[in-house]
């Protein structure tokens, strides 16, 4: 019999519904697990044990009174610390927001609460989601549960690690340039970045608005689909959220991919992709062929410019988004006695932000400034259009595109942090989906010793059903979903 913390969301809900266990027992088991491993993983910034147990008891009361239960009844969910929860500090892993307590719930938080999920805590991340390793957190790095000396990926490293380590059943992350898929890949869990506009961003503290989406982390593709359905949907509070008919994504999950056309973009295997990773991903492609898919190669030539275009856009938007952190209304504040506001702002921002955040603000400010706007920002927007067109052309021939999520396996903590460009290069295969606004999922597809490898599946807008279907078929044909990190 597995421990309660080991259950998937689907199993948890089922057992609570049938009375086999209670939400309280499940949540207690989760916190027991957290006490056991958190010292080695450091997935959380804030734990919410008291609130979680209260919520679990409320769910149990519903069960005992025979009231209808939500889709995530009693499921322990961790929330990335850039998603606002009313009354719980939300730090973005930054000193700047160390004591910031939002006065409202993000739309996704309202939704998961409404489905009786139990929020257990806020997860660690790269400061303001700027990074791919969760090393830029003001609260220190998160460790990869598979190998604590390596990074869990980022920026949603805490969410990926929490699910992998059994400290949460599900977790919310945000993905601006790969921040869900990267840690999903590195922690060997399922992580999905939805189509831009499918999930409300209301309450997500912005890094780069035009690129990012909130999305699910889960132990299985089924759980991922279940969780996605809870958070998806139009929100009148987010102008960029799109009105599309909602699907029940769990219905599309079947064990074959008969007749599905799978494209392999050659640019996804360019310079910097390790041979081992390449091999793992090709094995996936062959496996999909076994399962009935048709395979073909495809080229998206403009992907060559994806990385620089992504960083120009992301940093430009960030420079404006993060301007509000001046310490006047909330957040980090020193130098109260200064005579003029500009000195106060400068001091607060110089000390309140970490190096990587300041680097991106400065670069973004530069890219938007007079005389450089056309050269950088506008050009990046043009590249973005070209990339979108390349994808459109590719999707005329293929249903989904498959490639590696990360070009290399998890690297050592501290190995790349002094070399920002090397770190930026890790996003080479994840940023295209953000630039084009496409849905993409990372599904575990290999273990190099204790170093997980993930494969990425990309589909046309609002075809999450396709990537989940492919992911599910592959997952069911392998044993990766049953492998656990060696944490004891």
């Amino acid at each position, binding site marked *: 019999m597995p421990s309660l913390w080991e259950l998937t969301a689907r199993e948890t809900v089922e057992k609570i519904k049938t009375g086999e266990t209670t939400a309280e027992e499940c949540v207690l088991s989760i916190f027991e697990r957290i006490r056991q491993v958190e010292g080695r993983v450091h997935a959380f910034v804030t734990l919410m044990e008291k609130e979680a147990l209260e919520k679990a008891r409320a769910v149990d009361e519903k069960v005992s009174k025979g009231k209808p239960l939500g889709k995530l009844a009693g499921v322990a969910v961790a929330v990335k610390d*850039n*998603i*606002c929860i009313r009354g719980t500090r*939300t730090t*973005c892993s930054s000193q700047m*927001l160390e004591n*910031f307590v*939002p*006065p*409202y719930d*993000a739309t996704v938080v309202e939704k998961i609460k409404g489905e009786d999920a139990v929020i257990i805590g806020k997860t660690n991340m790269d400061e303001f989601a700027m990074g791919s390793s969760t090393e830029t957190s003001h609260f220190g790095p998160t460790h990869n549960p598979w190998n604590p000396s390596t990074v869990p990926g980022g920026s949603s490293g805490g969410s990926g690690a929490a699910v992998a380590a059994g400290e949460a059943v599900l977790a919310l992350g945000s993905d601006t340039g790969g921040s869900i898929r990267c840690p999903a890949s590195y922690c060997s869990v399922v992580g999905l970045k939805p189509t831009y506009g499918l999930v409300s*961003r*209301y*309450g*997500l*503290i*912005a890094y*780069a*608005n*035009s690129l990012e989406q909130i999305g699910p982390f889960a132990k299985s593709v089924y759980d991922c689909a279940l969780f996605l359905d809870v958070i998806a949907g139009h929100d*009148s*509070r*987010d*102008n*960029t959220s799109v009105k599309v008919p909602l699907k029940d994504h769990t219905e599309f999950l079947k064990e074959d991919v008969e007749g599905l056309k799978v494209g392999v973009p050659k640019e996804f295997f360019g310079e910097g992709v390790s041979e081992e990773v390449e091999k793992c991903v090709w094995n996936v492609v062959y496996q999909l062929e076994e399962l009935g898919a048709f395979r073909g190669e495809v080229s998206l030539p403009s992907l060559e410019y994806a990385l620089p275009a992504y960083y120009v856009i992301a940093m*430009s*938007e960030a*420079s*404006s988004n993060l*301007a*509000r952190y*001046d310490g*006047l*209304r*909330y957040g980090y504040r020193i130098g109260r006695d200064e005579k003029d*506001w*500009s000195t106060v*702002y400068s001091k607060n921002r110089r000390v309140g932000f970490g190096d990587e955040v300041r680097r991106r603000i400065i670069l973004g*400010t530069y890219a*938007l*400034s*007079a005389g450089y*706007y*056309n050269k950088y*920002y*506008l050009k990046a927007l043009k590249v973005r259009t070209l990339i979108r067109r390349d994808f459109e052309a590719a999707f005329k021939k293929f249903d989904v595109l498959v490639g590696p999520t990360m070009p290399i396996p998890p690297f050592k903590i501290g190995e790349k942090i002094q070399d920002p460009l090397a770190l930026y290069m890790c996003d080479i295969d994840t940023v295209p989906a953000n630039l084009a606004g496409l849905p993409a999922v990372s599904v575990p597809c290999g273990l190099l010793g204790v170093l997980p490898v993930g494969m990425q599946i990309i589909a046309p807008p609002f075809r999450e059903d396709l990537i989940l279907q492919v992911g599910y078929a592959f997952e069911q044909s392998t044993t990766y979903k049953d492998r656990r990190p060696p944490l004891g």
Partner: protein
Amino acid sequence: MSIMAAPGVKIGLEIHCQLTSLKTKLFCGCSSDYRDREPNTLVCPVCLGIPGALPVVNGKAVECAVMAALALNCGVSGRMFFFRKNYFYPDMPKNFQISQYDRAGGVPLAVNGYLHIEVGKKRKKIQISRVHLEEDPGKLVHLGSIDQSPYTLVDYNRAGIALLEVVTEPDLRSPREARVFLQRLRSILEHLGVFDGGLEGAMRCDANISLAGGTRVEVKNISSFKEVERALSFEIMRQKDLVEKGLAVERETRHWDEARRLTITLRTKEEEQDYRYFPEPDLVPIVITRDFVESARAKMPELPEARMKRFVEEYGLPGYDAGVLVGEKALADFFEDCVKLYHEPKEVSNWMMSDLLRCLYENNLELPESKITPAHLVEMIRLIEEGVISGKIGKRVLPEMVLTGRRPHRIVEERGLVKITSRKMLEETVERVFAENPKAVEDALMDEKTVHFLVGQLMKATGGKADPQLANQIILERLKEVMKKKQGK
């Protein structure tokens, strides 16, 4: 030398009008009724720029702005983009303002409009380069002057209020023209029902001024019609003075200091801000369809130009009167309400144009701030018509009506201002006036034209209440008697 004589004055205006008819702010559901409210109470995560909150465009604001653009004869864009204008300032919760931009791929809501203004006898066309929507920043509160205040307080109740920005070409040639333009703009927006210019701070303006093709200087912080004339006149004199002394006019931004009535340097060209405009990623472009524009057009009420024409045709008013009345929507409405009750348009117009406007001006009031109602003015005119009071008393009663809102017949009764029509009473007074002014009586006997002095004395003695016709008649009779007596001697 007069300011008007300054050569080659070119003035362009950038006007910000709050769309005061909206119940809520531009990007959130907070109430826009912020005046006289407890500071920082009409705020939410969106207008406070709390992390994670997102703006949503108030659709009604877009409709109001489209109507305004049409009324200003602009071409309305098919798509509307919001841009971020980035700069740090404590009145901006996000340290950027959501605005619109005409470069970097941006398109303002509307472009290429114009307005006609009449200055003196001349009709001029003032071109409007663009009209767009943006959010108002919060309000900084200082103790006294900004230079000396020991603190700055920030009130975000105003943050996020919908502002309509109207930018003119530098077609205005004098401070007077600038003022007339602003008044015309205000009247149009008020007629559209999107704006109430009577509210404090609802219309603010920046101006750029150059002399004889010289360097352009921008003046900010002009808060009213009166101020615009003062600020521009000061700035023109300042520039003229520099030119006459052979000094250069610097390209800079200056601040109109209302208290001291002068402009001071805010920042020089070197310190000009780089606003790093870029498209607001949280707001998707709004498609403005032909249908939307046409339905907005269909909803537009009668505008000043048409109303003025109607006042001339329907009420037989002189063009000048019609122009003055329609210049302010409240005046025109008041006039028409009066005419509904009392169909002597010219009579109503006369009272409004002369006495009512003077009284408002003297008391520094806008018509809506005063207490007088159309019914009361009509009642007063009727009292005169019916002979209950004289016109002179009417002029005395009006200011009290304006200030207190009391009905004219009550004022007249209480103060005993009813016209004296009793022959006996007037005869007694005439007797006294004659006794007290023997010299004047002599004069009047010699030259009948000087009779008016005696009439005046009688009016004075009766506090203006004497029925003028009867008074005149009695004085003439009495003079004849005096004459007879003299001849009889």
